[in-house]
């Protein structure tokens, strides 16, 4: 029986016939058969966690929209998205009929309260953990100048420097895993908004609930450079370091081309390896810049040294969008930024509601963050992390298309954090981080009904105190978990005579038909992205 159920999988692996009549326990064949079969054997493992979001309109974030489709995951990774999927026995099902399924949102620059909980004080916006003191000690410890002579005390009192964090790659990550509060109410609020990945102290963090395993998604992906007009000294240093790093890479390339192992490797003396990593494309160079002249300078710098800048703020970006586009820039913008242009200037300037749209139309990759990247709990709503999709809505107001607006809070921030291979869209192989909403994500009235992280349900609107009382979710006729999917659907057909349900839960059709349907759906999805 079990084997019969496996048939759809097997047929896709083109080994269905070979398997027919094979021993009941697939893992018995593990050693003898081809690799594909190996995989099938794995599928049989009783300890595998299968999770399926069933029957929703799936907005994959790649452009495709599949109506009434199923997203199936295994052990937290998406296995398959489509219609009439075979769901292995024991698959946990989430009924998403009549709702929409989107990838989990990715929040840049999010408040550290989110993972550190209620008792973590909000740091001052300009707080510098090094207290404005550069490394004075040859060992690179930031506050070595405060040494008391008591080694034990000095070690405890030490603060890791940026360089420690980046080069060692461990210090800060260790800290996040240690300080992550998986029971934080702020975490639940983030999940209620649909945020499943957040930037915490420059590193990507998976918002897991009730567990801390694998919350740390990797090292920091950006290195901050200062190229501010108000700080000529930093500008000079940045340029010098880039020049030296560029020179080092040239010498390195020549040395490698020569292939003479006896010859000494080029010297790293005076070379800041962080800049080398920027030039190698291993990390992004991040800037804080709003002023048009600064943005132009950054664009020119990026083109000269061939790196991709991530520009936070980018308020006057709309006035130099083509230069930023040519430099391959990323921009992190807040569409509602409100700053009039200086009256002394004749040229265009100041903030513009059209900023995101203009940048996007020139090829800049635009990510959106709200004006307040924490949680506003004083009663004023609509401009904090709880309303991240609303902020993307304001980008649409300025002319950004709806698809790019969804990207601006999912896949583009994921790229900036270096985790777009795992999150940001719904695709086979990526993490099963999905949100189920009761309508268009970018509509102000829409609530997230469920949030799934790594194939586990971590938020259910009806089960939390925050929003359950607002427009309670109507009950759907049950998707019978005990039945085969086909049979369950048949039951639903009988119980829910409504046209929509009948259409969604139509009995399985042949594969060819399905593909045709999928293509139609995509077309419809494009239309849908227009406006509502």
């Amino acid at each position, binding site marked *: 029986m079990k084997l019969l159920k496996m048939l759809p999988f097997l047929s896709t692996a083109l080994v269905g016939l070979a398997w027919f009549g094979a021993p009941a326990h697939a893992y018995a064949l593990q050693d003898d058969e081809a690799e594909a079969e190996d995989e099938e054997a794995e599928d049989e493992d009783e300890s595998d966690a299968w999770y399926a979001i069933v029957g929703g309109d799936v907005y994959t974030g790649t452009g495709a929209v599949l109506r009434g489709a199923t997203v199936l995951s295994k052990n937290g990774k998406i296995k398959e998205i489509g219609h009439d999927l075979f769901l292995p026995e024991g698959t946990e099902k989430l009924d998403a009929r009549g709702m929409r399924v989107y990838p989990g949102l990715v929040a840049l620059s999010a408040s550290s309260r989110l993972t550190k909980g209620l008792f973590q004080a909000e740091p001052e916006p300009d707080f510098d953990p090094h207290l404005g003191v550069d490394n004075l000690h040859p060992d690179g410890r930031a506050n070595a100048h405060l040494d008391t002579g008591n080694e034990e005390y000095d070690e405890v009192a030490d603060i890791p420097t940026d360089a420690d964090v980046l080069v060692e790659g461990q210090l800060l990550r260790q800290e996040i895993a240690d300080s992550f509060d998986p029971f934080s109410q702020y975490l639940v609020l983030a999940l209620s908004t649909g945020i499943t990945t957040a930037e915490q102290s420059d590193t990507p963090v998976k918002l897991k609930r009730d567990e801390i395993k694998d919350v740390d998604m990797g090292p920091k992906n950006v290195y901050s450079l200062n190229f501010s007009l108000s700080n000529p000294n930093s500008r000079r240093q940045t340029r010098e370091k880039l020049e030296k790093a560029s020179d080092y890479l040239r010498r390195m390339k020549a040395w490698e081309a020569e292939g003479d192992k006896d010859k000494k490797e080029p010297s790293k003396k005076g070379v800041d390896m962080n800049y080398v990593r920027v030039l190698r494309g291993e990390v992004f160079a991040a800037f804080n810049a709003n002023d048009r002249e600064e943005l132009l300078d950054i664009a020119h710098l990026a083109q000269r040294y061939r790196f991709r800048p991530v520009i936070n703020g980018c308020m006057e970006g709309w006035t130099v969008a083509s230069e930023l586009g040519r430099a391959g820039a990323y921009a992190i913008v807040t569409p509602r930024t*409100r700053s*009039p242009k200086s009256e002394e200037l004749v040229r265009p300037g100041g903030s*513009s*509601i*059209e900023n995101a749209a203009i940048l996007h139309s020139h090829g800049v990759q635009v990510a959106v963050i709200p004006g307040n990247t924490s949680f506003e*709990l*004083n*009663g*004023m*709503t*609509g*401009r904090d992390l709880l309303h991240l999709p*609303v902020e993307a*809505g*304001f980008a*649409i*107001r*300025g002319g950004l298309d709806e698809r790019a607006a969804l990207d601006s809070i999912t896949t583009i921030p994921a790229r900036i954090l270096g985790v777009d291979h795992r999150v940001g869209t719904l695709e086979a192989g990526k993490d099963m981080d999905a949100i189920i909403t009761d309508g268009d994500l*970018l*509509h*102000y*009235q829409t*609530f997230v009904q469920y949030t799934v992280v790594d194939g586990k349900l971590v938020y259910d609107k009806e089960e939390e*105190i*925050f*929003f*359950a*009382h*607002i*427009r309670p979710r109507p009950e759907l006729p049950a998707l019978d978990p005990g039945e085969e999917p086909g049979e369950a659907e048949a039951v639903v057909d009988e119980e829910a005579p409504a046209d929509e349900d009948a259409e969604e839960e139509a009995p399985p059709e042949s594969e060819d038909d399905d593909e045709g349907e999928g293509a139609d759906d995509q077309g419809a999805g494009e239309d849908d992205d227009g*406006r509502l």
Partner: protein
Amino acid sequence: MVRPTRFLQLVLACLAPAASAQAPGAAGGPGLALRTSKALICAPDADARQVQDHAWITVKDGKIEAVTSVHDGGPPEGYEVLDVGSNWVMPGIVELHCHEGGTYDINDLVYLANPGLRANSAVINRNDRLLRGLAAGVTTVLFIPGSGANIGGAGVLFKTGPKRYEEALVREAGSLKLAQWGNPESWTIGVGMSFENWNTRNTFRRGLAYAKRWDDFEAGRGPEPRFDPQWQLFRRIATGEVPISTHTQVYQVVLMTITMIKIELGLNVFLDHSTIGGWLAGGLAQEYGVPAIVGPRSVDPATRGMIEWARNGHEGFRGVAAGYQEMGLEQIGFNTDSPVLPQEGLPLQAAMGVRYGFRDDRLQAVRGLTVVPAMTAGVADRIGSLTPGADADMIVISGHPADPRSHVELSFIDGERSYEPDVEGRIY
């Protein structure tokens, strides 16, 4: 690109400045007929027709003439036609709690009660902040004194677009600002709520006595009183023409506002802010006809401190507008308390109201931005709706005004174009 007709208008405007005063729809000019896919009429009577799909809106001499279905025939002969396509047309949005109408020196903290102070001396017409509001559809604001003192003075009701004060003015005494709880009790050494309530009663009684002396004199029942600018406003408050806009919040204080100002003193009053559990008094507000203009808070959030303060026993994010609605109050509007929230954020206040549970099945959100505040301020005959005879303050908008994704394409004030993004650039 400048379309030929617009270009011609610009040329005409350059050649003869007087020509702009004769623009179609404006006072003295030919009629203007807007064709729209949806006209949100927002009639004061909630049971009257609120929406006309595929409509002609005719405007003459700065006033709305009629809103009719396109199926009932075209506009009158000689009217300039403007087809706004799929855009909607609605009345200009009305803000009843604005501090961005001019300079910010609107808190006189020498005395606890300043009924003679007037915000109109601080107005800067069509300033940058108002212009951003206009770009979001806000055409009228009630610019009021701050809540630093118990009685802050008179607000002024004026339109955001016109450059001259006289053209912009709707009513010079828009409201008298009263502040209960939340700021004035901290005045100098902190007078506390008991003294505040005594002071409010005392001031109002003296003011009403002044009004009565003048009424008696005019009716030939008494001697001529001495003119006193500090109390003069009470003559118009006593008739109900000028409402009391009350900074009030927390259930008990909202109760005090209703019982003292409305029930005891019998004055025209509305609840301003009225958040932090104030909605629990919504039933009483409905019984006595006291509207609530809620904001800038739109929810009582789920924090322990807020729950204990609000005493509303609710651990979720409780929508304020939704709460009043649930208690049966019909007249519910929205405010921003700009610059606490920016002036252009007013439509979003309605969106947040709806998000957190306010029913919008009978255009309540749009009414709460337009005709409800207009009725509350006692000027619904002039602004807040597209009813015949009202000022032609209209906005052409790409969708539902509460939706952040909708943007204003064009604004009219008194039938004249007041914000034209395709000429002056998008502001918001």
